[in-house]
């Protein structure tokens, strides 16, 4: 048993960077929401006004889910903390499971483990134990954040539980994907696809009248139906327990039977040469990345299409001018037309495209970590040119993703005659680019300066900037501090005008960061794992 516990501890230690950043994020968000609400809406009158504004406002629900009670601090926190963090918790669950159950195998380390005295069952359970430990840390982070902000202990514990209840389910989904897919990458893509669908179902359920029952079809909806601070339907816990058990046991049964190193999906291990896209390192990068790019395109495109589709039916709640100001403090805008709804929603796509940019930094780093760059740079290949090629490729991907989201949202809206012109949707798509390119440039600089931590830093910056934009205002942070988040400077096109100056500044910073990254990358040692 000590061998298995050594594996579990190793797996837990391997993911410490991710665990620490998620834990901090969770604690901060939990604490900030409660305190922020208390400060911003101290009296019942304030809260009534707020509830009226948000009660029927579908666009806000998109981020946070269905609100059940906005008049108490607990009810509000359940909505904001649970609604947002359950998405992040799901993401954590699938990252952790793919890492423990496929990435190790993909890298060939699992063979080493199984060649020892550890059986497959013990190794699988050890991996799950490591995920379980991280899961407990996330629960604790939310709990402490809420209790620290003086919410009742019992209710806080339950809200924290409801929020992280999605973790085992998505870990289970990723565990299953890890059995099906032969590579880390495909496993990640399959399980991310499941998360996109789950999120989409929740969004539709929370924003479309008459479709509330859809909440029962998605694990993210179950978290809402647990109703922390608003009635506590603890029996709903049976759903995630059942789903997670089925998925994890099923994945385990497959894991015990299949060949180590392979997945259920067969991969073709030989074939005639296909000479396309082999002419240069950049061409090869395109060849390697196109599959994963197709995944991103499919995910964001599908999401955008559905957003367009429902943009008309999400009705406009009348919002008084007095409340307008408060809404703006929350990063919201008045939603009286489909274009307003889409405008707010597109902040999601700014985030998604920025994450894509980070994934490209990660892909570049893997070329270095797996020592392919040694082979490449021993040829007459200029390092700066290589990195510039990859950054251009990533920029192209960012542009295509953003514009595709715009076009597909327009297609969805057009089928409902929502009256949103194509030009403004193209503008909304293009509006995603400056922020994403800024993160691409900064990510590249991080990669050039601190190779091992570069991609992680890029993801971390995106997450912090996004969360800060959502919550910084609630905490009463001064303007200049809020303005540090690039998301703060995104006009909610098409509802708001495009902010040209801000975009130009971000693009200039992006270019500066990218150029510095070329300079720094040329001057450093290549660094392995």
């Amino acid at each position, binding site marked *: 048993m000590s061998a298995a516990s050594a594996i579990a501890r190793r797996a837990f230690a391997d993911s410490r960077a991710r665990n620490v950043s998620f834990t901090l994020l969770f604690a901060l968000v939990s604490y900030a929401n409660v305190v922020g609400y208390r400060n911003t809406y101290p009296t019942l009158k304030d809260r009534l006004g707020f509830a009226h504004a948000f009660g029927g406002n579908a666009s806000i629900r998109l981020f946070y889910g269905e609100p059940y009670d906005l008049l108490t601090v607990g009810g509000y926190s359940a909505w904001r903390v649970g609604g947002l963090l359950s998405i992040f918790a799901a993401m954590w669950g699938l990252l952790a499971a793919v890492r423990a159950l496929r990435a190790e195998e993909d890298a060939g380390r699992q063979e080493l483990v199984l060649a020892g005295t550890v059986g497959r069952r013990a190794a699988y359970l050890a991996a799950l134990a490591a995920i379980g430990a991280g899961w407990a840390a996330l629960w604790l982070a939310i709990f402490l954040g809420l209790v620290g902000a003086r919410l009742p202990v019992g209710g806080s514990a339950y809200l924290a539980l409801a929020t992280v209840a999605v973790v085992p389910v998505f870990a289970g989904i990723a565990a299953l994907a890890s059995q099906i897919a032969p590579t880390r990458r495909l496993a990640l893509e399959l399980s991310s696809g499941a998360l996109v669908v789950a999120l989409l179902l929740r969004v539709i359920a929370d924003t479309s009248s008459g479709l509330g029952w859809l909440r029962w079809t998605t694990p993210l909806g179950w978290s809402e139906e647990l109703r922390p601070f608003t009635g506590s339907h603890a029996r709903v816990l049976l759903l995630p327990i059942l789903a997670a058990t089925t998925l994890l046991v099923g994945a385990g049964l497959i894991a015990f039977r299949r060949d180590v190193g392979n997945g259920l999906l067969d*991969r*073709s*291990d*030989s*074939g*005639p*040469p*296909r*000479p396309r896209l*082999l*002419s*240069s*390192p950049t061409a*090869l990068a395109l*060849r*390697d990345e196109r599959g994963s790019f197709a995944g991103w395109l499919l995910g964001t495109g599908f999401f955008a299409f559905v957003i367009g589709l429902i943009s008309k039916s999400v009705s406009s709640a009348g919002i008084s001018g007095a409340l307008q100001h408060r809404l703006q403090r929350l990063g919201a805008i008045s939603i009286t037309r489909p274009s307003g709804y889409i405008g707010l929603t597109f902040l999601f796509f700014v985030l998604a495209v920025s994450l894509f940019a980070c994934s490209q930094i990660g892909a570049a780093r893997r070329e270095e970590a*797996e*020592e*392919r760059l*040694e*082979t*490449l*740079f*021993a*040829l*007459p*290949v*200029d*390092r700066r040119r290589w990195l510039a090629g990859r950054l251009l490729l990533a920029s192209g991907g960012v542009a295509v993703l953003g514009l595709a989201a715009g076009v597909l949202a327009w297609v969805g809206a057009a089928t409902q005659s929502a009256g949103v012109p194509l030009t403004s949707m193209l503008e909304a798509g293009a509006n995603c680019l400056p922020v994403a390119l800024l993160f691409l440039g900064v990510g590249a600089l991080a990669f050039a300066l601190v190779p091992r931590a570069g991609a992680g830093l890029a993801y971390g910056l995106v997450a912090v900037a996004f969360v800060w934009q959502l919550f910084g205002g609630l905490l009463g942070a001064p303007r200049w501090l809020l303005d540090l988040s690039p998301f703060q400077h995104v006009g909610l096109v098409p509802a708001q005008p495009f902010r040209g100056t801000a975009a130009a500044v971000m693009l200039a910073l992006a270019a500066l960061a990218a150029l510095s990254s070329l300079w720094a990358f040329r*001057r*450093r*040692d*290549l660094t392995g794992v």
Partner: protein
Amino acid sequence: MRPALRAEGLSKSYGRTVALDALDLAVGEGEVYGYLGPNGSGKTTTIRLLLGLHRPTAGRAELFGIDAWHDAVAAHRRVAYVAGEPFLWPSLTSAETFDFLARVRGGSDAAYREQLTERFQLDDSKRVRALSKGNRQKVQLVAAFASRADLLILDEPTSGLDPLMEVAFRETVREAKERGQTIFLSSHILSEVEALCDRVGILREGRLVDEGTLTELRHLSAQTIEVTFGGPAPRLPALPGISVAVAGANALRCEVSGSIAPLLEALAEHRVLALSTREPSLEEIFLHHYERSDPRVGR
């Protein structure tokens, strides 16, 4: 002889660890140079500096007179490299890998590549991710030799190869040598170096401790003298430059570096039946350098 490869005071530290300490090295065009050293002695560091993959802390490295760090791209035009770890692009087949590397290099000898693919018995329609380590190593070797580059830098190129492939490798190196190509062969397979190399450098803890042709190394290094006595082997007094080991009931094996005279004087008092001396193998020269002194005192 114009050097194809030159290092001058080449040093590299990673934090406090000195990986390479003021290396001076020149490999002439057409020469096959064996670079010997145990794991962690700085062989791969040297190669990374020679290729401009890592930046020297001090000194400089040149390939065909071009600075390896400041002008890496130009320096690589006439160079092919086989990395110690055969990481390649997993999604490409071997044929696609050859195609890609040849295009990035700007040409390769296709007919010779065919010949090498056959010689190394490589199925070039298989994807790299499905290949064993040895087979991935073959992919690297075929790509490097088919490039007909003037200088081949090989980092432990035969690790993972079976004995048959080792033979194929030696044949290929000899062909390259006949064509006048220069080869820098980092290895710890001594028989391979002994069979292929014109000159050998021995690296120890980041310093070049010995260098020369095999004959020179043998001359400078210890020779082994086996002494058989007409009775139990006596205990010899401590002698300068001579280490003595028991080799059977009536025999001693003496490693002599330097003059043989003190040993002969010491032996004169005993009944010696037979005295045999032989040249040290490369292995003995190599081991000699690593056993000679305590590494912690040695620097």
